[in-house]
């Protein structure tokens, strides 16, 4: 069974699903990580392990939707824990991110870069690099947000300047 969430699904449905507990009410303190995968990478810092942590779970059956849509403990008291920000943004804004990557500019892309902690002076390079690798990052309309994140990482790792944001 293909367990990846298609881009179409992510494009529309996750807008509502991603924040099942976004209301500032009722919830108790939740110190768990963001998906089971996080635990595998516990103790490692940087964006890459955080993203790979998801990927570890990317194909583990029925949990995929929960992880991809970011509902597994990504939020605490209604806000997203900072390390999860990149993924939450990607999952929720996958269609807008694809638009911006294709154009090489835009606020979803700028926000993505900021959440990835890419410094201002390197952002034009990031935008151009992602744009020229569009077909690698978005190879099919069934691509999942997690797959997109992994491809972006790989593309960045191949670039001398951008690699440091991955290895951090």
């Amino acid at each position, binding site marked *: 069974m293909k367990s990846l969430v298609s881009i*179409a699904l992510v494009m529309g449905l996750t807008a509502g699903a991603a924040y099942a507990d976004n209301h500032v*009410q009722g919830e108790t303190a939740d110190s768990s990580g963001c998906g089971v995968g996080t635990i595998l990478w516990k103790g490692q810092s940087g964006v890459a392990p955080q993203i790979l942590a998801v990927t570890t779970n990317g194909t583990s059956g029925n949990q995929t939707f929960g992880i991809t849509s970011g509902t597994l403990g990504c939020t605490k008291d209604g806000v997203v824990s900072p390390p999860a920000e990149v993924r939450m943004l990607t999952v929720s804004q996958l269609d807008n991110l694809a638009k911006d990557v294709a154009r090489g500019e835009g606020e979803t892309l700028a926000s993505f870069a900021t959440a990835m902690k890419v410094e201002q002076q390197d952002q034009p390079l990031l935008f151009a690099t992602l744009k020229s690798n569009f077909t690698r990052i978005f190879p099919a309309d069934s691509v999942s947000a997690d797959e997109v994140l992994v491809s972006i990482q790989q593309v960045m790792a191949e670039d001398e300047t951008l690699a440091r944001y991955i290895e951090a």
Partner: protein
Amino acid sequence: MGQKPAAEAAGNVYLETLIDKAVAADLAAEPAWHALLHYRPDWLGPGYHSLIDSPGFFLAANGKTDPRAELEATLSAFFQPPSNDEQTQHPQCAFVARYRWLKERLRFDRDRLSPMPCARFVAWSETIDATSATLIFPAAYMNNPASMFGHTLLRFDRPDQSESTRLLSYAVNYGAETGEDNGLLFAVLGLTGGYPGTYSVEPYYQLVKRYSDIENRDIHEYQLAFTEGEVARMVEHLWELRGQWSEYYFFDENCSYQLLFLLDVARPSLDLAGDFALHVIPVDSVRAVLEREGLFEKAVFRPSGQTRISQGLIGLSAAGRRLARDLAEGAAMPEDETIADLPPARRAAVLELAETFVTHQMETGDIGRDEAAARALKLLTARSRIEAASDLPPIEGPKTRPDQGHESARAGIGFGLRDGRSFSSLRFRPAYHDALDPSGGYAPGAAIDFLAFELRHYKGGDAPLLETFTGVGIRSMARQNALIRPISWHLNAGLERMRVKGTDEEGALVAAFEGGAGISAGLGRDDIWSATLDAELSGGEDCDRTCSLNLGPALSLLWPMSDSATFLAHGRYQLRFGERTRDRYQLRLGQSLGLAQNLALKLEAGLEDEGSGAEQEFLTSLDWYF
């Protein structure tokens, strides 16, 4: 938590000292305390009541109605020993804004009242990371009356943010939890406070997606000049409001009103919640906030998907529009010669517009997700292969922002002639906007009237007569273009005067319920031509001549020549099915001229025959908005 009986704290001398100090300073009567507890004066009598309805918000059993008892119970609760249970917050943390205010005003002695660590609150507020605040106004969107008044949110912005990374901010929304109720139940419960209203916080990109991409509402952002400390007070107060609720009233304690308490907590001297006129319409509260001395910093416009499409089309030639449509519908491929031959910047523009339209169609449910995703990916892949940027001009906001439009209530006096008889006219309408009102700041072609009436006094007549009364009237004339094809429609319920053969010259007062639907198109930038098919049920005095079902076509032209001057022409012919009724027609011309933001001159002329022969009418009026 709950109330701490005074007896239990009897041994606590320091608590008594603090209470004495608070009483001496009359802290419970201060605007800051009233803002923190959402207290409002009672309608009758000298007392107060809080607008929050959940008991957990109060520490005193009678806290909802007694500011002083609540203050004393709050002080008492701050002395509670820490709980062993990590899930339970200490009152100093659960009510962190009250704690900070009382600590500052009463100068708590750390040695006699130990400060508790508030790890959950600290982690939460560090994630929000707010240093400035922005009032967010998603404007009305076409074809949905519920949205026509707009909505307000409050966004918390981060330090070192640029306009292109605001998506990462958090925003707070106050809304009713309405569930899945149907239209009528929704309306009844909404008007009577049957839904709980709660505050929620979520990333701004989620809200932009909902309002801008899915609901197609343009968003106006108003950056406010609150200090970092004032913004911190708002965040602290928001923490206190987690899990609390109020009965939600559409026309009173609604989304925009309850948000004002956050601003009042930040700066109690604003007293926005005390401004009664703000209770009803979101844009009025936006105006009130911006009018406060030194509060407004900067406005930013965020176009909806629909606006991006409509404005993009204006920048293209007819051939370009056709290509964009064919690409969006899958009738043309990016590799086709017609596309490939375009200059790169234009090709980029056409591909981007086509893709925006595909996602727009998916959001509106016109095409399936699988189909949309496949098409969008094809278009984006082709777009990514073009170096150049789109050659379409950037999208501009409206010349007049919503806050700069005329105010919501209207009163007018006028003089006119009907069939040679002169009359004076008095018009009043508490809300909101009709086709002839100055269009600046309002959605083009959208009109909504509530409880509007006109009284007329004819020369030589006895007493003023009710000429028309509109309970509710809604009109949405949305232009169709090469890509977007909305339906235009209108509804009206009220009373009108019908001049039928056999009635006296004042005519018969009849109740009429009317509706119609059709299409609208435009030739230039702003003109809206509409054709609709209308149906009306009418009946009242002189029933055999007035009770009927009326059916027929209507044509109109609405031309906002500028933000302050509008021309309107409207004509209709109706077949009437009733006992002794005759078919009728009506032609009306109107011209408005804005003299100031809140003053407009109107000239109207009409020709109609409702069964007693053709009659002419002229009316000049001066309308004041307030």
